[in-house]
């Protein structure tokens, strides 16, 4: 059963990955990317890494890809213009692709399993969330915190780059709004007949 599931999922991953670059409409590309992410999560479930699978869905599909989709939908992409530069970029793309392929082939022939996973991941752990937690917070504590700092720095950097204080912008002040009382807004007058206020 698991073997069939693997072949079905793997086929979908590869096909949707191809469609990411083959689709004419960029929004369709992103949607295929999402399908590829989601199906990869299925593959992770098959090898028993259910915690990682769920994280992949929550982080990449639920958050990152939504932002991708936002950006692609908001940009008014001109498809014809996009296709024009295709040939001039082709050699560079091929080069990157070839290097990447060579690296993967070299890594798989060098026996990947002999170099990673040199320690027993947490013998007492029952679920793989516990196993990952025990490794991450002991063996890789420093790297983990470093990654957090890198993310924080990049987040602050993005805010600094995009935040502009523009003068003359009307802002909502919630405290001011909720502090408003009836007497601030209304005044009851009792004008006598025939006379204005």
């Amino acid at each position: 059963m698991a073997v069939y599931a693997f072949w079905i999922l793997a086929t979908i991953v590869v096909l949707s990955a191809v469609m990411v670059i083959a689709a004419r409409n960029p929004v369709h590309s992103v949607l295929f990317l999402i399908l590829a992410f989601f199906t990869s999560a299925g593959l992770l479930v098959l090898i028993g890494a259910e915690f990682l699978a769920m994280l992949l869905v929550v982080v990449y599909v639920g958050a990152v890809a939504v932002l991708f989709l936002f950006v692609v939908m908001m940009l008014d992409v001109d498809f014809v213009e996009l296709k024009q530069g295709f040939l001039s970029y082709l050699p560079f793309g091929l080069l990157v692709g070839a290097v990447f392929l060579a690296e993967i082939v070299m890594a798989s022939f060098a026996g990947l399993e002999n170099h990673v996973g040199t320690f027993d991941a947490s013998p007492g752990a029952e679920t793989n969330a516990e196993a990952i937690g025990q490794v991450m917070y002991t063996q890789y504590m420093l790297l983990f915190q470093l990654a957090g700092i890198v993310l924080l720095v990049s987040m602050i950097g993005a805010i600094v780059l995009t935040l502009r204080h523009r003068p003359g912008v009307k802002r909502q002040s919630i405290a001011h709004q909720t502090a408003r009382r009836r007497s601030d807004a209304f005044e009851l007058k009792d004008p006598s007949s025939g006379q204005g206020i």
Partner: protein
Amino acid sequence: MSNLIESFGDFTGFWMVLGQIALFTLVLLISIAFLLLLDRKIWAGVMMRKGPNVVGPFGLFQSFADFGKFLLKEIVIPAGANKTVFILAPILTCTLSFVAWAAIPVAPGTTSGTSWVVSNLNVGVLYLFAISSLGVYGIIMGGWASNSKYPFLGALRSAAQMVSYEVSIGFIIVTVILLTGSMNLSAIVENQSGGFWNWHIFSFQYFPMIFVMFPMFVMFFISALAETNRPPFDLPEAESELVAGYQVEYGSTPYLLFMLGEYLNIVLMCAMMTIMFLGGWHGPFDLGDVVKDWPPLLLSLSGLFWFMLKILFFFFMFAMVKAIVPRYRYDQLMRLGWKIFLPTSLAAVLIVAGYVVYTGVQA
């Protein structure tokens, strides 16, 4: 093989699982029909109207009449719409809201340590969170594929809103996970056994935590309103501004699917609140010795009764909020999500984590 594949509930076997799924789907569909009516009746009651009362006694069959009407209407796809995505969006929304129910344990099993659930996942909470975070795609896709201004604006609003409130929902879920020490939904329910004071909303077994968990429960309820686009946070379909948001161009069956998905999500959120804060299938008092000799099936059914009663209570709350609370402004919504809920829930995670570490309740 992974736990996820192996653990298909109490019974194993392909057909058994298929039967369970069919049963869940059927029960959900029928309950949604009546919950929709309940929603409209409550809303009408608050406004001193009668609500639907023509089809069947007390209008009981109103939803079925609506269902037939939606099915028989013609599907209109706007010119210039992206056909595939347009049709795919409501199907995706509806499917995802059904799929999420696979992990919800509805009653204790007939043998100890099991529960009535299609798939007893070890990462059940994360699964629910993941599936509900996918719900935003149906809305974005629908709004974009309509190729029209109002749906697109509605979709963008909705996506921003759902992504914002997901963050605080995530942190609130983490507090519950910390107290339980497990991401298994059945384990979370079992952790609240022994009487209503042990439910996570009161957390008597972790005494001072009531001051953290009770506010977290209230925040979860409000976030659930925002996450399901219910009033007072129904800005994606604020009819005074956006006509009907991402659903403007939808009619007949696709609209029906959107609406079905929306209500399923609401009931799912009610179920999540029940499981994480209100003790799931546990009754308010632990009758331990009294019911010891009852047949196990009866115990399971009584668990199911309490579970459904609590869901119904939450659904009533959802309907009442819809009836009596005015709509938020969009900047207020974002401020509430990012400036109030996010820091508060983050602080709660720190406090609960500190409590768990220093009292050692999770060995």
